[in-house]
């Protein structure tokens, strides 16, 4: 066992930290949470920091998930406006790398690695949430195309951003064989959000971020843009489930560390708080959670770098991480007291209102994104503890 980082990893962290020190991001598109700076994103690509998980022949670095986690953590710590970093660089990128044809790989991977495009997974539907296998969107083959019809929910990032008109690459899951049970007969397609026939209606979250309902009305997708084999989309997603649950974990670890450091500074400067035993207990509780999340995040990255099955730990760390973030913002607001409810616009808002923002925003991760606390526990019980499978576990056979 060796819990530390090697010299190369430490050097990488230093480089990223010093690059981000002066906030090199210029203008930011605010429609995309946590903000998106195309120029920053391209600079990350130029430095090779988006290519750790990818083969050298596509311009990647052929390195491992530990390097990826280090860079993401630093980006999170700096609060960098990296747009849909995780969906692009990890989720969609890895699915293309692991399931895509050579043509799709050479079309998209170099652009993902260079930081030229943003991507997102478009899976959820009104009737396919935690039970994602129930996807109903239809894709019908007609000649050289598939025709997609149906509705998707919570498709984030896909509303056109007028100011910069960034094309967003969508990875859409749809049913190609309607006679099959849930989790079968599904296929994945790559298309851009500007494709004719897609109508978005914006859903504004309680945190103010925007997400979308998307209606597909005879959307044409060339047959070459099918990702993986027809009717095997679900297997492909399940084989990459560890990436699906990753949810940019390391970046959020950085965010949590930054919030913690800010709060420590705030409390240190105030004797009445610093000496209050209840405040001290809460702060220490946060430090414990943070350390657990850090260890498990890097453990998953290490497992992936060794080609081990990290799925079991990934689900566990997702629960701990989501709860840690929510607990942190809750305890932090309790420490700030009444003034903690002020939003960032107020000059009296302690810590510029970031904790109020975090408390509202973290609800997303905790309760929904990528499996809520109940769905994850059901998965853990089935997959790790061996209980009868009545939720996620029953769909995983395809992954084995």
């Amino acid at each position, binding site marked *: *066992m060796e*819990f530390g980082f090697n010299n190369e990893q430490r050097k990488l962290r230093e480089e990223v930290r010093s690059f981000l020190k002066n906030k090199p991001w210029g203008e930011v598109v605010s429609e995309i949470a946590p903000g998106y700076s195309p120029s920053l994103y391209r600079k990350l690509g130029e430095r090779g920091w988006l290519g750790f998980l990818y083969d050298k022949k596509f311009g990647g670095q052929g390195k491992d998930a530990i390097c990826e986690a280090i860079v993401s953590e630093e980006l999170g710590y700096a609060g960098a406006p990296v747009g849909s970093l995780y969906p692009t660089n990890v989720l969609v990128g890895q699915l293309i790398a692991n399931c895509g044809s050579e043509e799709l790989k050479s079309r998209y991977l170099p652009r993902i690695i260079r930081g030229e495009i943003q991507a997102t997974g478009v899976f959820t539907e009104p009737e396919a949430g935690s039970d994602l296998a129930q996807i109903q969107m239809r894709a019908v083959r007609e000649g050289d195309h598939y025709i997609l019809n149906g509705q998707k929910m919570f498709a984030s990032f896909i509303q056109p951003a007028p100011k910069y008109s960034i094309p967003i690459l969508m990875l859409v899951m749809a049913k190609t064989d309607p006679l099959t049970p849930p989790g079968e007969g599904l296929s994945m397609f790559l298309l851009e959000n500007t494709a004719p026939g897609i109508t978005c209606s914006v859903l504004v979250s309680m945190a103010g971020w925007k997400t979308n309902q998307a209606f597909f009305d005879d959307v044409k997708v060339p047959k070459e843009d099918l990702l993986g084999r027809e009717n095997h989309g679900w297997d492909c997603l399940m084989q990459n489930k560890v990436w699906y649950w990753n949810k940019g974990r390391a970046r959020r670890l950085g965010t949590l560390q930054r919030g913690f450091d800010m709060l420590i500074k705030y409390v240190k400067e105030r004797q009445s708080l610093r000496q209050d035993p209840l405040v001290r207990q809460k702060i220490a509780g946060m430090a414990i959670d943070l350390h657990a999340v850090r260890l498990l995040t890097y453990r998953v990255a290490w497992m992936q770098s060794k080609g081990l099955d990290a799925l079991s730990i990934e689900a566990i760390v997702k629960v701990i991480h989501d709860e840690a973030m929510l607990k942190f913002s809750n305890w932090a607001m309790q420490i700030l007291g009444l003034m903690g409810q002020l939003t960032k616009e107020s000059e009296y808002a302690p810590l510029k209102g970031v904790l109020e923002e975090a408390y509202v925003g973290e609800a997303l991760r905790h309760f929904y994104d990528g499996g809520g606390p109940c769905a994850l526990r059901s998965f853990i019980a089935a997959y790790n503890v061996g209980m009868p499978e009545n939720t996620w576990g029953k769909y995983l056979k395809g992954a084995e």
Partner: protein
Amino acid sequence: MDFSLSEEQRMLKMTARRFCMKECPKTMVREMAGDKRGYLPGLWQKMADLGWLGLIFPTKYEGVGGSFLDLVILLEEMGGALMPGPFFSTVVLGGLIILEAGNEQQKESFLPKVANGEILLTLAITEPNARNEMDSITAEAQLHDSDFILEGVKVLVPYGHVADYIVCIARTRKEGKLSEGVSVFIVNARSQGITVTSVNTIGQDKQCEVLFRNTPVSGQNILGELNDGWAHADNVVQKAAVALCAYMNGGTEKVMDMSREHAMNKVQFGQCIGSFQAIQHRLADMLIGLEASKALTYDAAWKISEGSSYVMEAAIAKAWASECYRQATWLAMGIQGGVAFIEEHDMPLYYRWAKAAETTFGDAEFHREIIARELFG
């Protein structure tokens, strides 16, 4: 970065698991709770032969030269089996403090005997009015010529009744801060004026009250420098806390396994209760807590093995493990139902032990305060 066990560590874990299964059934655990000695000398010798009693001692003291991480791996298995006996008191408490604070002569005279199973040790710190181990030291050692006379009461001295030597913390300066006025002594348990009485505890292990009345201790038997004992004792208590985490994690895992088995086999409402999500989520919660607890314990043990600063990591690990184990016993009792409350069931053993271990070397609240001290001073 490497989160895996080495080949030797995997071997150690496997050997320990098999040994515990064979040598430490629950019948033996129960028997030892009622036994006067509280351990089987034959078993103790087997552990010596396996090298476990000298696991963390360098080879020149007839040890194995293993690391603290190795110790943690062994203890995890022992904790799963609730292995009774003076291993913790002899190796982790008495052995470790002599290894870390002793001079060459002391190490040479005690450690090989511990490694070979010839002597048992224990550590006497806690006094009746202490809320935590190191809170209050009033036992006194007065200098007479070059020797000392020891006077005081220690409670919760593990396996004090069978120990050959009691490592005892006492004040050597009446006034002033504890950190500048206590010393550590190796006291022969058969010295005059020592009375050892067993006390009953929630954990049903062998804890003792030890009275020192006019007990003479040779000046040669002081561990470390005079008046400098606080740091040594504090250091060993913190390391022991990490070692105890491993023992506790083993228990948590066992409690989870028992619950899993019960959930699969027990049929109610026409199906095994493990098919109910309320039960499933309890099992998931046990595993979630356990995985983090193991990671935090290994991390702290690794820091200790590397000789780096470990105060923060040790406190984090003990805070987590303490709540995790106790919580797991609660969840498990809920899953396993009424039979788990019956004394013949194994759950009462774990339920009691989890609470005892939680309070030993500081509970979560205690360690959170240590963390806060590290952060804020």
